């Protein structure tokens, strides 16, 4: 945990609202991103993640609300210190990879010659020197995405914003990307990324914002999101019934002979006592700290969680 007051704020949004043709896409999102942190924006499809990021970057202006990026309320003024990987990747198809990286740097104020030099360095650091001269159109989707990611960091920004950076990458490249994000944060760079894969956020993020239906349902440290939930008790007994049942909360569910419920207010002791006193015959008992996924369900609701839940990367988590 950290004290917010001790860290500089890299990006901040206050009550951002965005209407598209009279339809509300983002409905009062507030965010605080401390410098050097990794912040995840979580939410199902259509929640308003991209729209929020685009407002914070100054690509679009909000209908109402304010945002500050590296201390400026006109984000384009700090464009040189920001890197952005849009959700819909876009590069000029005929440009060679190294030129595309240098061009993205040049857009953000890096001299083109220096950009070309760094592009070659970045590519060869990753063993991709053979990509340098290849036109983007001849690269695979994942390769092009890697090139664009390198173009996002070539000018060594202080803040990196990545919209769904993991989508479209294979497991190996997802891992490489996680490492890149960690390395950047270790170097003091602030990273904001959006995802609908909770596992990535859980592994990487210090802070998360959970957005559902255009609202920030939660915004804060990952630990804080977790600690909002009571620990979960999994219980298996020999006796199907008995007086001990009254010690279980009414919300307790029995799934295939196993009870699942939130640990009651009094903690584990009264529960254990009731079980032992009435000889319930404990077979297994575990008390687990909830994961971000459970926190997400609790915060954004079952429906939102279901919409997020069926991603392949989910399988590997927890």
């Amino acid at each position, binding site marked *: 945990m950290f004290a917010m007051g001790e860290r500089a704020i890299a990006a901040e949004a206050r009550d951002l609202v965005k209407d598209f043709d*009279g339809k*509300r896409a983002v409905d009062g999102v507030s965010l605080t991103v401390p410098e050097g942190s990794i912040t995840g924006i979580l939410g199902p499809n259509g929640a308003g993640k991209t729209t929020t990021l685009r407002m914070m970057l100054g690509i679009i202006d909000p209908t109402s609300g304010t945002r500050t990026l590296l201390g400026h309320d006109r984000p384009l003024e700090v*464009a040189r210190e920001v890197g952005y990987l849009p959700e819909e990747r*876009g590069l000029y198809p005929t440009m060679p990879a190294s030129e595309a990286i240098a061009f993205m740097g040049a*857009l953000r104020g890096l001299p083109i010659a220096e950009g070309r030099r760094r592009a070659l360095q970045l590519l060869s650091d990753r063993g991709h020197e053979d990509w340098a001269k290849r036109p983007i159109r001849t690269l695979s989707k994942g390769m092009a995405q890697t090139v664009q990611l390198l173009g996002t960091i070539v000018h060594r920004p202080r803040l990196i914003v990545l919209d769904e950076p993991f989508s479209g990458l294979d497991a190996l490249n997802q891992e490489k990307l996680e490492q890149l994000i960690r390395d950047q944060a270790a170097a003091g760079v602030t990273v904001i990324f959006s995802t609908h894969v909770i596992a990535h956020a859980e592994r990487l993020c210090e802070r998360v914002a959970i957005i559902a239906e255009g609202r920030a349902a939660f915004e804060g440290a990952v630990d804080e999101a977790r600690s909002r939930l009571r620990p979960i008790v999994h219980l298996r007994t020999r006796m199907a019934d008995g007086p001990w049942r009254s010690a279980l909360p009414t919300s307790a569910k029995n799934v295939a002979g196993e009870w699942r419920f939130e640990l009651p207010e009094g903690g584990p002791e009264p529960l254990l006592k009731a079980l032992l006193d009435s000889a319930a015959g404990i077979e297994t008992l575990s008390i687990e700290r909830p994961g971000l996924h459970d926190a997400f369900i609790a915060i954004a609701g079952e429906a939102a969680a279901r919409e997020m839940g069926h991603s392949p990367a989910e399988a590997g988590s927890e």
Partner: protein
Amino acid sequence: MKLPETIRAAFVIARRDFSATVLSKTFLFFLLGPLFPIGLGFIFGGIGAQVEETAAPATVAVVSSPADFALLQKARHRFEPLGTDRPLVRLQRVDPEPDAAAQRQRLLTSADNPILGVLEGGLFAPKFTGAVTADGRTVQQINLFVEEAVRMRSSLQVPSLPVEVTLTRTSSGSVAFARNLTARAGQTILFVLTILLAGMLLSQLIEEKSNKVIEVLAAAVPVDAIFLGKLFAMLAMSLVGITVWTSAGAAAIAIYAKGGLESLPPPAVGWPAFLFFILLYFSMSYLLIGATFLGIGAQASTVREVQTLSMPVTMSQVLLFGFASLGVGRPDSAAAIGAAVFPLSSPFAMVARAAEEEALWPHVIALVWQVLWVALILKLASAIFRRSVLKSGPSRRWPWQRRQTA
């Protein structure tokens, strides 16, 4: 965002666009295309010769007695049926004055009564002074008229006396008319170049929109800079083309029109300045019309939409050209001033003025005015683009759109 930063960003965009265009294989076709018509034009009769022939209002002052003049007119009348495609030279009688040389000089330079040349010396010692080449149609016609007049007078077969010809470089008639012609030619060159080249700007943002690069650009630089960069990249590319084409054209003039531009009467501001103005006003008209097109085209999201837009856009260019040409020949008329003030037709009107009027200060004013409008149109275009394509800012409705609450 500060101006230097916008210009720096525009330069990055322009450099990419320019090299992407100029280094593509299709650019060669772009360069070669216009050379075919230019080549053909010069093969079929030198342009220089045509200018000389069509330029004259074709009036020759005849310093003679009424009797001689009557015979000449009669002779001319007899040949009239031959001048079907172009009218014969017209004759205008002037009473002889004691100082023939002074009279000739005055006639040749009179602005109220523009003439092509002076015929004097009666029927038996005819002497022609004028701004045409010796083998020109005018001299041949005068020769015929004199010959026929002599024949009619004597009713005898007399050996014909060739007209003695003195050539001056210019006469007022040829100057006024040639300037008018130069003005029109300048406008036409400008028009053809802009209509050929500015249309490309309609489709300039389609590429970025379809391959999604627009999001990368819009996140990094102001939309103004994107538009400015694209506009100047296309201008630079057009100027490369124009340089190639005019070099080819100049070579053709040198080969086919003998003296080249030297053989034509100079425009009011002189040839070097006039050519410079053509280039300058081409750039201005390209920037003005181009910025408008860029803004219009940015609203389209598919090539099909751009194609649909290109017809009305071309028509409006024709209208602008028509509007600007109303004032040619009358640089101080309301039409000419109006066309110079209306920003989109201003370069056309001003290039005509450069051919007709010597004063340079109106050009300074016009250029400042035009630059101002380029900036204004770009600002407007990028504001509309941000609002309607990037869907930025508070949503505004037109008054006639019903308000629906979300």
